[in-house]
């Protein structure tokens, strides 16, 4: 499939693949579970401590701690089993969601790769900027243009130290490791300008190692691409 067909006549995707949407989905699920469980646990901690606070003249429990005496054992396996099950169920919920999304994402990545219907862009990180190379040899530095509604694969490496290629608004990123290749899939529905940032300390210029990801409509992209000598 040539690039113009890919960008302008892309296939309908059967799975939601915009990373930021998936990301927020899991993040919100985790946060809901965390807030509910956290409130229950910390709440019971406070309530228990206050309710069973020391009061003058209160009768001593039969198994109370005595100086120099080994305390008795308490707590049987039944309670432990119940607690274990509760914790495991909560974890399974979180784990399940993560695996499902991760699998979908991987499958999409692999099938796009096989079908070849993907725009591949090579990203080379260096101290302290990003270089992008398109299939037709066009190179840009510090900013990269991609078409909307099209699967894009960034193949990320570095020529010096380790960096992390991250696009904070789209909630994704991958390490840029010298002599190695990291893969980052994108599928962006909304045209616009997104910031690229380095998320791994890479020397004194780390703070300002930023770039721009510009998402164009299909036609705009094709025009830009051919004006740069591609097609």
């Amino acid at each position, binding site marked *: 499939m040539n690039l113009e067909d890919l960008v302008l006549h892309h296939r309908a995707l059967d799975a939601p693949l915009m990373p930021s949407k998936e*990301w927020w989905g899991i*993040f919100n699920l*985790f946060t809901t579970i*965390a807030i509910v469980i*956290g409130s229950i646990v*910390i709440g*019971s*901690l406070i309530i*228990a*401590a206050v309710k*069973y*606070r*020391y*009061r003058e003249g209160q009768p001593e*429990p039969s*198994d*109370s*701690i*005595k*100086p*120099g*005496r080994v*305390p008795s*054992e*308490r*707590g049987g396996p039944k*309670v432990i089993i119940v607690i*274990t099950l509760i*914790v495991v169920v*909560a*974890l399974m919920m*979180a*784990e399940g969601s*993560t*695996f499902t999304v*991760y699998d979908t994402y991987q499958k999409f990545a692999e099938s796009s790769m096989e079908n070849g219907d993907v725009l591949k862009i090579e990203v080379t990180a260096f101290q302290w900027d990003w270089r992008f190379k398109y299939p037709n040899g066009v190179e840009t530095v510090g900013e990269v243009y991609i078409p909307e509604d099209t699967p894009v694969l960034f193949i990320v490496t570095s020529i010096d*130290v*380790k960096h*992390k290629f*991250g696009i*904070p*608004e789209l909630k*994704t*990123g991958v*390490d840029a*490791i*010298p*002599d*190695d*290749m*990291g893969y980052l899939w994108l599928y962006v529905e909304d045209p616009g300008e997104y910031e690229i940032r*380095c*998320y*791994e*300390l*890479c*020397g*004194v210029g*780390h*703070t300002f190692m930023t770039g721009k990801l510009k998402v164009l409509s299909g036609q705009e992209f094709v025009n830009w691409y051919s004006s740069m000598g591609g097609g």
Partner: protein
Amino acid sequence: MTEVNIREWIMTTDHKKIGILYIITALYFGFLGGTLGFLIRQQLMYPENNLLTPQIYNQIVTVHGLVMVLWFVSPLAFGLANFVIPLQIGARDLAFPRLNALSYWLFLFSGLLAAVTFFLPGGTIDTGWTVYAPLNTAKYSPQPGLTLAGIALLMLIASVTLGTINFTVTIIKMRAPGVTWSRLPMFTWGILLTVLLMLYAFPSVTAGVILLAVDRVLGTTWYLSPEGGDLLWENLFWFFGHPEVYIVLFPGLFAALEVIETFTGRPLYGRKYIIGAAATAFLLSLIVWGHHMYTTTIPPLIKKFFVAGTMAISWPFGIITILAIISIVGGRVRFNTPMLFALTSIALFVIGGETGIYNASVFLNYHIRGTYWVTAHLHYQLAGATMFGIIAALYYWYPKITGKMYNEKLGKLHWLISTIGFNLLYFPMFLLLDMPRRIYTYDAVTGWAPYNFYATIGSIIFFLGHLLVGLPNLIYSAVKGRPAGPNPWGAWTIEWTIPSPPPPHNFDTIPDLRSGSVVYLNGGSVNVAHHEKLSITPFTLSLGLFIFFLGFMTFLPLALVGVAIFLIGLFKWYVDDISDRYVSEEPEGLEEYPYIGVAKEKLGTWVFLASEILLFGALIGSYLFVRANSSTWPVGYAVHDVSIGFINTIILLTSSLSMALALAYIRKDDVKGTAGALAMTLILGLLFLIIKAFEWSKLYEEGFTLTSGLPAVTYYTVTGAHAAHVIAGLFGISYLILKTLKGGYSSRDYNGIWNVGLYWHMVDIVWVFLFPLFYLI
């Protein structure tokens, strides 16, 4: 307070004094590291702030992380452990008091060495505390300060390794009668799990730092080559790095649980299950290091494995938390300062744990990694759950250590300020979801300014709370506090049955817990005279190393002075040992079945050998890692002379035989035969080294040099590490020969020969692996 005798403190081998030294030194390093953290917050308070340059900022960020984890939190816990654990298990000291002193001085001087690096040209280490390759190589970070910081880290690891051996042997071997595993106090359990985890985790980072030092000093290319590089470092580092999280956490968490038990006044609910859960987490922590590497290029299936492992590890911690809460139900909770800190520790642990689950999800991690979310999470665990637990422990044992009571009102104020300051400092960082870590400034348009501002206000409250309320309380009360009495909290453990502060010999007679209550054997009358044995050598050896390494990186003649001091120390140690000055008298009844047959020194040797084997495992693993990543590796016999390697193998195996012979002779009280067999071993060891030197020089002439590529680099590094062990073994053997000739060994006492012999066999066995790995395949 009596006058402080400086000489006595420098030469002390008493676990209580060393514990106090540890606590004070760790608090001092904590103050330094905390100040660095405080500076970070001041710089980030406003957008586009110019308080610090990026060069300085990167150094501050890096050293803050390293110091807080390695020179503050862990040593502070081990200071408490030093003081408390022998008392809790009814022992008079740790198993090896002089090694304990050596641990302390190595710790102090390693910290000073790390501090000096700030003042070297080009500054200190500035790579972030994870020191990723290849930013850590001389190519990208040429400053000598980084190399020296790495060496300081190796010195600290030496201290940690000695501590690991000491605490493991002490807790296994030195428990008073009746102090069974199920009766072991929670804090002691926590420290036992911690040292076992240290034993397992540290050799990996030791190997990592050794390779880094070799790269930086000798110009090899472990971390600059595509075959090694970032992933080699990350595997070595995180194999250590994730267990390290629990190494730091366990002492604080278990101290908090012990405090909760005491101040609730009832036994912990499901105590056995808490320990079991922690042991499960211990085991799982060995297989989760990959969750720090989701954004690297490791394959998807392996990532999933690490996701499952990491999610699973939150399960035991969930159980511990819930059991801690159930423990409170039906109790009589007294809200003293230690209890307030302990309960807060559990609450912060819940938040830190839950946010950790986010990081475990590969998909979330793609973005989260490298953002302030991670900073927030790890500080909830380390500066929150762990630190609050350790502060609880500090207040809890303060009356035992000083004999005085701290001021309760100031203590509670300290808790209130810390809790408010902490949450104001770190909670906003969760909301800085997009802000990269370790950037020294940010634009106003990012919208990050308000959260950073809150965090900085929080840092001021948190920092000043410790400095102006917590610390003055501890210092002032040590002098002016009211006497605490032996057991101010009504706690059950053994340390509270003796006066505060404890007498120099801890116990007049050995406590006995077999009946379920503490009773003192012989009706409490003194049955063993206890004299603390002062020794200057731990200080001398550590000072010598400090001066040597400092000179090595700055001014070479200074290094010679260091070597001289070190050798004087080593010689003094030899002399002391040969005269058996430091052999401790063993009180009766300390040994617990089934460990009665194993001498302390033997067990210590085994623990040490375990760490050595893991170290070689990591080094050989690194070699196999780079070799597997290479497509053009020459087969061993094409490069190396197999016959020379084979001869050396035979020589070492023969030396193992002669070593075994020495043991057989001494069992028959044949001193001459023993000395002869040992001399034979020494000669064979020397022969091995001479042949090796010849072999290396020949290889060098052939162009097989440290800069000629990885086959040479791996060969020289790994066999060089082995040769260094051979040399150390020869020192040990010559010591044995001297002592044998002086009549120091007999058929009743030959532990020294047994221990050095075991070490020697280990060194030989390592070679049996190295020979085929380098020469044959």
